[in-house]
């Protein structure tokens, strides 16, 4: 089932209320109705009875398509799948915590603006080198990331001396906007916010603080880190994931800057 929802580029939270008669694995995707490869969320939930999907959208298109279906049956039109009923779709204001973000820092302001525009448009942008309006930040949008002719499994990396970010288009096309944003904010934190540029956990938490403060969905942050760590399941990455999980779960009670 695909429903069109006018969102007029607003920031909002979509509430999608779904009923099932027995436990069913329900997939929810919210995609831009006009821009290709632009997904706001792609998640599933096992639902038995009534349940609501909360989709936080700090950015949205002019109108979006909400795609809901039972994974067991595939995406069928309304009336052809009796195992699932989409009761309502409601728009609510987005809950943000901008006070945790140091917007007095011009680099944070500039990078958030640059990264937001890049993440929203990455699905239709050609490979190449992109610069922020104030020329402080550079992103190299590469078909793949290579080292000595060998393709790397990382979706993005940053040159810690020059701050140039390299992004793999191959990975980014499949990522949701929140996934892309979480990765960018992690890379940005390494060079511009961390006390220790090499500290992965510090970059994770500094990046997440901005990500969550802007109102991006918690689930997409878990997802992108989980997928990245699954490619290299080391003990260090397990510790990182535990810290990230703990930080996200406790975010609402945090009220301090993690960086200067």
């Amino acid at each position: 089932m695909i429903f069109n929802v006018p969102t007029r580029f607003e920031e909002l939270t979509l509430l999608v209320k779904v009923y099932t008669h027995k436990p069913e694995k329900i997939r929810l995707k919210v995609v831009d109705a006009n821009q290709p490869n632009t997904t706001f969320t792609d998640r599933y939930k096992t639902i038995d009875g009534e349940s609501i999907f909360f989709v936080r959208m700090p950015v949205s298109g002019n109108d979006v398509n909400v795609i809901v279906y039972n994974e067991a049956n595939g995406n069928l039109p309304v009336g052809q799948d009796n195992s699932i009923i989409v009761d309502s779709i409601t728009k609510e204001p987005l809950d943000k915590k901008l006070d945790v973000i140091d917007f007095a820092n011009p680099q944070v302001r500039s990078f958030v603006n640059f990264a937001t525009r890049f993440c929203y448009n990455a699905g239709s942008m050609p490979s190449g080198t992109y610069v922020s309006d104030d020329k402080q930040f550079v992103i190299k949008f590469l078909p793949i990331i290579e080292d000595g002719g060998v393709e790397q499994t990382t979706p993005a990396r940053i040159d810690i001396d020059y701050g140039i970010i390299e992004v793999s288009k191959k990975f980014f096309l499949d990522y949701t906007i929140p996934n892309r944003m979480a990765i960018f904010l992690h890379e940005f934190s390494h060079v511009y916010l961390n006390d220790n540029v090499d500290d992965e956990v510090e970059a994770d938490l500094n990046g997440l603080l901005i990500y969550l403060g802007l109102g991006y969905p918690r689930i997409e942050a878990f997802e992108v880190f989980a997928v990245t760590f699954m490619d290299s399941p080391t003990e260090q990455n397990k510790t990182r994931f535990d810290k990230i999980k703990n930080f996200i779960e406790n975010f609402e009670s945090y009220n301090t800057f993690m960086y200067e």
Partner: protein
Amino acid sequence: MFDKEKLIYVGAGILIFLVVINSTRKVVLKEVVQESSTKSFSSSSLPFQLRPPSKLDENQPLPSKMLKKNLSFNSMSIKPRLDT
């Protein structure tokens, strides 16, 4: 005749009720029968804050603001230091 304090509480209650009602907008469910795969998209229709960032031409140099950040002994290596 009217208890002033009660009137204030009633007024505040109505105000909160109206704010909650007006901030929640139920969407009329409009099904899309077939997603269009050939729909053309132009970034010129986007609001300014969502337009794609500037792209450098092939031979255009990187901006001069991109200075070496950490001019330390460690960073003076030939190989770039990359963090994932």
